[in-house]
């Protein structure tokens, strides 16, 4: 089952990647559709951020993780380089847990 998941996900992803290079001479993606797909991707990513930051299974993930994500987000908004964002998020979450806040 896991092998099937990886295989189908890989095949589908590669098909998405290959569409542009193969078809660009034959069809132009309408501007509006292009904008819509990139906005849709942003919507999905934000939802994924929210679910991954706030929930664990069917319940609340606790405060430490969303706090770390928030600190990482602040670093990112201040245009900090990505490695710093990563470290800030992990360290914040780890420290809060050490302090007893889960």
């Amino acid at each position, binding site marked *: 089952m*896991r092998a099937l*998941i*990886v*295989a*189908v*996900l*890989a095949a*589908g*992803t*590669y098909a*998405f*990647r*290959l*569409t*542009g*290079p193969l078809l*660009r001479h034959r069809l132009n*993606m309408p501007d509006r559709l*292009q904008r*819509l*797909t*990139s*906005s*849709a*991707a*942003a*919507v*999905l*990513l*934000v*939802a*994924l*951020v*929210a*679910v*991954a*930051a706030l*929930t664990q*299974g*069917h319940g609340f993930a606790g405060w*430490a*993780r969303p706090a*770390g*994500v928030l*600190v*990482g*987000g602040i*670093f990112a*908004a201040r245009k900090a*380089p*990505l490695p710093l*964002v*990563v470290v800030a*998020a*992990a*360290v*914040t*979450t*780890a420290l809060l*847990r050490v302090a007893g806040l889960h």
Partner: protein
Amino acid sequence: MLFKIIDVRSVWRTVGGDTLRDIALVCVADAIIAVTFGAISVAGGLPSWVPVSMSLLVFAGGAQFAAAGVMLAGGSAAAAVAAGLVLNTRLVPYGFAVADVFDGPWWTRLAGAHVVTDESVAFALRQPDRARRRAAFWACGAGLFVVWNLAVAAGVFAGRYVGNTNAIGLDAVFPAVLLALVLPALADRATLWAALAGAAVAVAVTPVLPPGLPVLLALAGVALLVRPPSAERRRRANQAEAG
């Protein structure tokens, strides 16, 4: 074959040291994410071959985390695949955007397509001309592919020894990185509102729906994006009638 494409000296001459340094920085950041992915997958109970094969064959961080997350949470295979694939639909417009960088023999197109990522496309589009776009795309794409897969393997190895990856805050890394990547897109007001609405829906239904589905339901937020232009069209139609 790869060496012919990525002749480091010619890339250096073409894209310049600044861009190469930025590409290296992004590779470092992605390496940390990749180590996290490998470690979390294995520590969560997936066999090593799952994160390793996914990284080689899927090679898309967000989709890998999403699919592995659904697997670890015990969601269905369909939900795992759908969560990953929906995230990867953004690769379709990416492919169109950089299609001109891999004109040439058929195998360069096949190989090039596999390294279409947020990062390689972003670096390519930042370049002023086609030669530099090509060099930046290949340098970032190929560099990331190597770094990403090595780092996932390292993470898998580390994950066996770090029993509790949450203790060192690794669970905060993935959402934080996604947030950093998506922030620029949220400068657009309409997208921001659609994203917030979608996220609220996703979080609200998480307690009751199987893993993987809530994120897909967030696409309902996209409906908010479809409305304004049609309202605009109505207004224009009204004006035309009035005029």
